């Protein structure tokens, strides 16, 4: 059986500057991969190319064997959820409506079906008591958990996370990381850009290390963290290790 998400030969240039120089990776059903690498390496660009928020210059993305093309884009995006660094909850909508708007307006669920689904996902992220709140009334950590619930309510095949904790105060990253760990253990397919060593070690099946628009190396956490092949990787890990101090209190490095 082929991988759920197959990314092949993605290239992206901004002007003369080639940000992605042919990136390929596969995500198996139920797999969680963490992408790491120095700032400006193209991690965000890669995620945005996968769901064509930024159309790649070359390369292909396949979801469940179906190639992403402009014609099926909106349908594919319903199955590839995106969690943003700065949450991007819909400001004018209460928590409940932030979560139901996709299922209702895009998937065509009835009001009660969408509501039931939203409540289920809110309970999953531990925020059932915040249904009536507006995003501005929540802490950053709570907003990010709502945005994860919003992603889950679309019942996507895969979720892309772009540094979901790096806009959060260190004491709030834990609550988001815990939710993500639980998702990973429940078999959610996830591609996560993050420098959270704690999450990467305990929840990721594989770590992908990117540098300068390439994937430099990838492998299981134990291998990549404890026996990295490349000097660049070692140096990067030392750097975020120094900044972080210990994995438990991990803020985003780089």
């Amino acid at each position, binding site marked *: 059986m082929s991988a759920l998400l197959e990314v092949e030969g993605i290239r992206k240039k901004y002007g003369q500057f080639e940000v992605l120089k042919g990136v390929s990776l596969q995500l198996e059903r139920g797999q969680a991969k963490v992408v790491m690498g120095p700032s400006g390496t193209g991690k965000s660009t890669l995620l945005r190319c996968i*769901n064509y*928020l930024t159309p790649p210059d070359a390369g292909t993305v396949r979801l469940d064997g179906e190639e992403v093309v402009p014609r099926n884009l*909106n*349908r*594919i*995006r*319903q199955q590839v*959820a*995106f969690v*943003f660094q*700065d949450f*991007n*909850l*819909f*400001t*004018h909508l209460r928590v409940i409506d932030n979560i139901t*708007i*996709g299922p209702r*307006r*895009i998937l065509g669920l009835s009001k009660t079906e969408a509501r039931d689904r939203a409540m289920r996902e809110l309970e999953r992220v531990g925020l059932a008591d915040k249904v009536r709140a*507006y*995003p*501005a*009334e929540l802490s950053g950590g709570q907003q990010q958990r709502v945005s994860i619930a*919003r*992603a889950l309510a*679309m019942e996507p095949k895969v979720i892309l996370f772009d540094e979901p904790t790096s806009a959060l105060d260190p004491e709030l990253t834990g609550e988001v990381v815990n939710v993500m760990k639980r998702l990973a253990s429940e078999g959610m397919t996830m591609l996560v850009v993050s420098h959270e060593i704690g999450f990467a070690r305990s929840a990721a099946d594989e770590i992908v290390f990117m540098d300068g628009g390439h994937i430099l190396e990838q492998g299981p956490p134990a291998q990549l963290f404890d026996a990295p092949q490349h000097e660049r990787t070692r140096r990067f890990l030392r750097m975020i290790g120094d900044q972080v101090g210990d994995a438990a209190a991990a803020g985003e490095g780089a």
Partner: protein
Amino acid sequence: MSDFLDFAAEHLPYILAGVPTTLALWILAITFGFFFGLVLAWCRIYGKKPAYWASTGYIEIFRGTPMLVQMLFIYLGLPEVGLTFDPFTAAVIAIGLNTSAYQAEYFRGAIQSIPQGQMTAARAMGMSDLQGLIFIVLPQALRRVIPQWSNEAILELKFTSIAFAIGVTEITARAETIGFKTFRFFEIFLIVAAVYFVLTATVAQILHIVERRTAVPGLTLGR
């Protein structure tokens, strides 16, 4: 004083009978201006070159020339090329076209003040750009624009008075008629000013309630 009150009591009903005309003129014009203003704003923000330049030119021309001239052009000028309107219709068109240019600029500013991430999130979940605009961007932009839009709407309510110049019998025209009949211009224009004041104050109050009712934490600026 009692003389003034008698005068007012005698002529107020005739003036007030013009209120429906004034309000109809106003509501039709600002409603037209609302929808056409949205289209113009859309063209300026998302439009390709021709749509962008057409809407920009339109907005500049209508904001750069007097509304009275526009109205006279429509009522007196267009018949010469075969387009004839009754006074009321001509006034609705003139005020509507004029306010659409101003509303467009307010809408554009409000839409552009909504952070890009909102539309990005809408697209990322599979909404089309139109859905993103309708469900996400516009509901936020329209809330933000209420204070400016209220000013514009109230300004237009007062501007309906220039329709008297082409013979619409709204309240200013009626006041003038009474003025020439009685030669008591001082009193009659005080009365008509008071009527306008009550109308604008009521509208301002209603719009203020709308603003409060639709306010959302983190969205409306200040207050």
